[in-house]
């Protein structure tokens, strides 16, 4: 009798916490939605070139940073899980480096990007510098998710393939990769989320100018990665702090939030398909 009471009490606490949490997040979404929706249904949204420009730049940054980090990260992850000798000192050192890299605050990475890409390599404050710095930020995550997706594959499959006379590499690419694909893909989507939400690195390395706006609709627009620019998150930052346009900042916030929600739904969808 008493035991049951205790049990019920614990359940009650769980429920209260859960409901509080739900209320908090729902009111957060509602608040952003309420503050930001007006401009979206306003025709002026489509003529708001700054916003659209930031959206396109965001996509460019995503493509470039993932284009750099994915091949390196996926290969490194495969190497760590399938080929590397875990007792090797150099491998251990590499692992440590990746772990540390994963823990570096993004503002510090941004500072590095500023010193290295912007000044030392002379890429200036540009979408290119920002993307390169962002790719360093997401690299550890890609390595980790790749490695983990490979590690969860039952050893029996690997043995089955090797026992047929396949080499290690044939086994990795023909048998194991199809299994790991889902996990790697999930990792990539999470990385996109991180790139979209990142602000510190962009503040320091992207520049944030809208001067190329005039060339926006000209043919050479998509190729101007070497120009200063801004992602949505950075746009929001400037809207608030440079121009104090709080209302339009909320519009940007709503778009950002929707993108993140979309990405997370994709992740949930992938995971449920398993």
């Amino acid at each position: 009798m008493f035991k049951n009471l205790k049990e019920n009490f614990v359940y009650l606490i769980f429920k209260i916490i859960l409901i509080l949490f739900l209320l908090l997040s729902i009111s957060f979404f509602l608040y952003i939605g309420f503050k930001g929706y007006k401009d979206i249904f306003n025709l002026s949204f489509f003529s708001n070139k700054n916003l659209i420009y930031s959206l396109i730049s965001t996509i460019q940054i995503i493509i470039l940073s993932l284009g750099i980090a994915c091949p390196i990260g996926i290969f490194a992850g495969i190497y760590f899980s399938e080929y590397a000798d875990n007792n090797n000192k150099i491998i251990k050192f590499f692992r440590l480096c990746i772990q540390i890299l994963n823990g570096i605050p993004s503002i510090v990475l941004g500072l590095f990007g500023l010193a290295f890409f912007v000044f030392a390599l002379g890429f200036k404050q540009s979408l290119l510098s920002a993307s390169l710095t962002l790719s360093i930020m997401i690299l550890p995550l890609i390595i980790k998710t790749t490695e983990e997706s490979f590690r969860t594959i039952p050893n029996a499959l690997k043995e089955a393939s090797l026992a047929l006379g396949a080499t290690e590499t044939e086994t990795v690419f023909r048998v194991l990769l199809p299994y790991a694909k889902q996990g790697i893909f999930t990792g990539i989507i999470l990385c996109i989320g991180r790139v979209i939400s990142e602000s510190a690195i962009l503040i320091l390395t992207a520049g944030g100018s809208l001067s190329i706006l005039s060339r926006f609709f000209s043919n050479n627009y998509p190729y101007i990665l070497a120009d200063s620019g801004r992602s949505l998150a950075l746009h929001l930052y400037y809207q608030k702090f440079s121009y104090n346009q709080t209302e339009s900042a909320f519009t940007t916030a709503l778009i950002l939030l929707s993108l993140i929600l979309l990405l997370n739904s994709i992740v949930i969808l992938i995971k449920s398909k398993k």
Partner: protein
Amino acid sequence: MNKNINKISIKDLYCYYKSFLAIENVNINVPKNKITAFIGPSGCGKSTVLRSINRMNDLVLGSKINGEISINFNNEICNVYESKVDVTQLRKRVGMVFQKPNPFKMSIYDNVAYGPRLFGFKRKQELNETVEKSLRNAALWNEVKDKLHKSSAFELSGGQQQRLCIARALAVNPEILLMDEPCSSLDPLATVKIEDLLIQLKEELTVVIVTHNMQQASRISDMTAVFWVKEENKAGELIEYKSTVDIFSRPQDPRTEGYITGRFG
């Protein structure tokens, strides 16, 4: 013509996992086109011996081998652990079927075609023929011929999956088939199917099968090797090896007798 040829000769085999001696001084000659059964209590090293024949134990970190295993490929003796041996070629010629069915996440066809494709089978016609022949040999063709490409291998029953794994192993045309308790997760009917299959297959290849099922050993095997765990050092050793009829009708070692009659082990 093939009478009395030793397909596999194991001489003075010692296997270690790190510093643990798992197998001590095993000597076996496996005759060609026969079924040889490995029996014995759990942990006596049956799988270890089996897996050292196609060098699958190389994959276990810290495993080490002393002794000699040689295989007769068309009268050419191949010393398995010689450094010049191409392990992938060895494993192609010495197929293996595992305890738990382990099909790949692909269609039935692609599972069977996996091996041939590795070894350069490209032409569709040729591949189709190999797949069909292997599935027929594994007594699975009639059950799957209508869904070769449509169905994933995971949609098959456990027994069908195991026969698919046998077909997959047969598709690269091995000369030896090593089987580690292939029927332990199957029901009696599926087991009988696979046993019949093995008896047919021995016309073409040499089978070594690990089994815990005494009826199975006596029903299908020609030779039986009995392994035991040594008390002093827990290493596995071979205690008796002769024709299955002799093992089951006049076992010499009291441990063999006790084991096959189910008194201990």
